[in-house]
């Protein structure tokens, strides 16, 4: 090595000085975010644990890979390129219900499928959320008059967010999921309106102690599921 040549050394001090100057002068405000303003000089966050958990839940949602009908094609588009649901922290489809915490119900539910969907929903760990996608999950949609069609997902499982459309555009689905995230982050939970199984023998009888006693004797295997509450006798 010739002594005339200087070894190549980056001037660290120079870089640091420039960065500091840029920040102090306001030319580079990458680090002067609202978050930093809110924190002040302290590196600590003070919050309630519940609030923090709600924020975490809303910001990291694992969806169930669950396709039923037409809406699932638009759902795939929402996961896919261009719309990319992953940008909103909700884009990892899980094949197993045991790993998922949000189920999008994308399509018409018929009598044969309803118990299976209920089973899938039951397998998901708490807390779990349901997005009803499309008109069919609201009321049966265009197939409402069908003899085999369940008049909405809410006959089987509770639904947090309904997204109308036939099918809803991906933008609508993203909006619905953003709304769900907002609700979760605010700690709101939807009222449970589910009426899953009914003791067929008792129908609409008032549940006094005699009925309760008799109900206790009933074999659970005889439980039935209804899918049209409005018209049921």
């Amino acid at each position, binding site marked *: 090595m010739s002594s005339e040549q200087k070894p190549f050394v980056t001037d660290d001090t120079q870089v640091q000085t420039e960065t500091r100057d840029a920040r102090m002068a306001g030319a580079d405000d990458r680090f002067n975010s609202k978050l930093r303003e809110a924190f002040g000089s302290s590196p600590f966050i003070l919050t309630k644990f519940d609030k923090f958990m709600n924020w975490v839940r809303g910001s990291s949602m694992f969806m169930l*890979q*669950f*396709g*039923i*009908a*037409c809406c*699932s*094609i*638009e759902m*795939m*588009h929402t*996961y*896919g*390129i*261009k719309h990319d649901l992953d940008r909103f922290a909700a884009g990892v*489809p899980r*094949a197993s*219900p045991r790993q998922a915490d949000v189920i999008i119900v994308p*399509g*018409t539910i*018929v*009598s*044969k*499928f*309803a*118990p*299976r*969907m209920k*089973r*899938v929903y039951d397998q998901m760990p708490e807390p779990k959320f349901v997005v009803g996608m499309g008109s069919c999950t609201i009321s049966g949609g*265009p*197939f409402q*008059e*069908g*003899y*085999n*069609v369940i008049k909405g997902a809410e006959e089987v499982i509770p639904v947090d967010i309904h997204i109308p459309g*036939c*099918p809803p*555009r991906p933008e609508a689905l993203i909006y619905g999921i953003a709304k769900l995230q907002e609700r979760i982050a605010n700690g709101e939970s939807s009222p449970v309106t589910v009426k899953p*199984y009914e003791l*067929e023998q008792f129908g609409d009888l008032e549940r006094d102690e005699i009925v309760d006693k008799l109900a206790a004797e009933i074999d*659970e*295997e*005889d*439980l*039935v*599921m*209804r*899918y*049209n509450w409005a*018209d*049921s*006798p």
Partner: protein
Amino acid sequence: MSLEEQQSDDPAELESGVSRGDELADLLGDLVVGREEHLNAPGLVIRPDEVQDALFKLRDEAGFDHLSCVTAQEYEDRYESIYHLTKFDDRTDEVSVVVPTSKDNPVSQSAEPVFRTADWHEREAYDLVGIQYEDHPDLRRILLPDTWQGHPLGLDYDQDRPQIATLREHANPLEEDHRAGDSNTMYINIGPHHPATHGVLHVETVVDGEQVVDLDSDIGYLHRCEEQMCQQGTYRHQIMPYPDRWDYISAGLLNEWAYARTAEDLADIEVPEYAQIIRTMGAELCRIASHMIALGTFALDVYGDFTAIFMYAMRDREIVQNILEDLTGQRMMFNYFRLGGVVWDLPEPREEFFEKIRDFIDELPQALEEYHDMITSNEILQARTVGTGVLPPEVAKSYGATGPVARGSGIDYDLRRDDSYGYYDELDWDVVVEDGCDNFSRLLVRMREVEESAKIIQQCVDLLEDWPEDERNIQANVPRTLKPEEDTEIYRAVEGAKGELGIYIRADGTDKPARFKIRSPCFSNLQTLPEMSEGEYIPDMIASLGSLDIVLGEVDR
């Protein structure tokens, strides 16, 4: 095409004065107890206990090797099964075998020994209408749950009556150990909620180690009463929205065409040439969109990734969907066709619209090149697909397989050419056939069909661009209310994205059809799954299922 035109096409018939119906009636001799005329074909009435004799004769001596559809219906005084027969070599040669059965004892002989596709079709007829089939190997409900009371498309069924599904019927079949005795087989449920079943298909498999011993597809998890919906709607406007939802993978216009073609032939409506070109273009765009998702999900099944290929296919689909949205106003459920034409003309400014399509067509070869790099020339995919899921042509024919599944087995059968409609016969394109009979061939057929579709779209755009402005007639003159004459019957099919999509309509003089039967290509194609998979490894079964490209909305209807 009406029956009259068909007859005048055949010079031999004109000379001799003997119609095709007479010829076939002579062939069957005493088996024929009556004659009917359907708009698409002559109808031969057969006694319910001689169905097999008649069908064997028609198949072996007259060459009717394709049982396209079985329609069952109930009249005031009788039940009726109609076997719509045609030929793979000559699609325009059709005959309907009509089998009436009495009201109090609706038993008819099964056609399953003649055509294996009759297995599922007759199960469906039993399930929905209530006709019993003697000799049928496995006559049980197919679409509705086993607990269902009554037959919903029968005349005396109250379609508003709520049914109940007991939990016991849906007990988890996996709870018990299904190992039988000393054998090493195991029972596995695949679906109805499973990422590789393309929807809500339930495949009951018995495996021995990793090999499939027995396989039974359990369908009906998306049976949303499409036929009932169509029977409740008026011909003119209320039926058209439903076809979009049969094959919902953006094949909307292809499906709408099936209904449009049938109803137009039924009501004798002539569609203007300009509208036919728009229809042809739109339909082929839909075919590209549909094949793209077949490609993406097939790669998803075989590689199991949710990444490159799936996303690339989605990218191309988004472009097609944007074009279709410009044309029809909707991304998926177009409702764009009307009887006698289309609902509106191309969007303005037209140049911009054509430019958009041209850009897409120009970039398509490069995109396909990319797919070939990633998929077909990939060693892993070849190892998984070449030589697996073999479906010999005779088996495919016997099951009534059509579309890319049949063409992947070397059957040169495409309704766009063989029973031409729309503007296809004026254009320059080829039917794609591969004779490998395996999963790889079916994939190749779809990829090459995309190229052919692009060729068709290109020519349509050229034609539309030069079309004189004052001759842009998008809609024929159609009466406000259509009331086809009583007892006119017609069965017509088009080449949907998955194969032969047929519709049978019987008119009863009102503005609504008395019977509306959908012949779904996926329903027949799915029947071939046990043939392809039994004795093979279970991952090959998943690949075969992916290569069939079923859509459950169409299987279950």
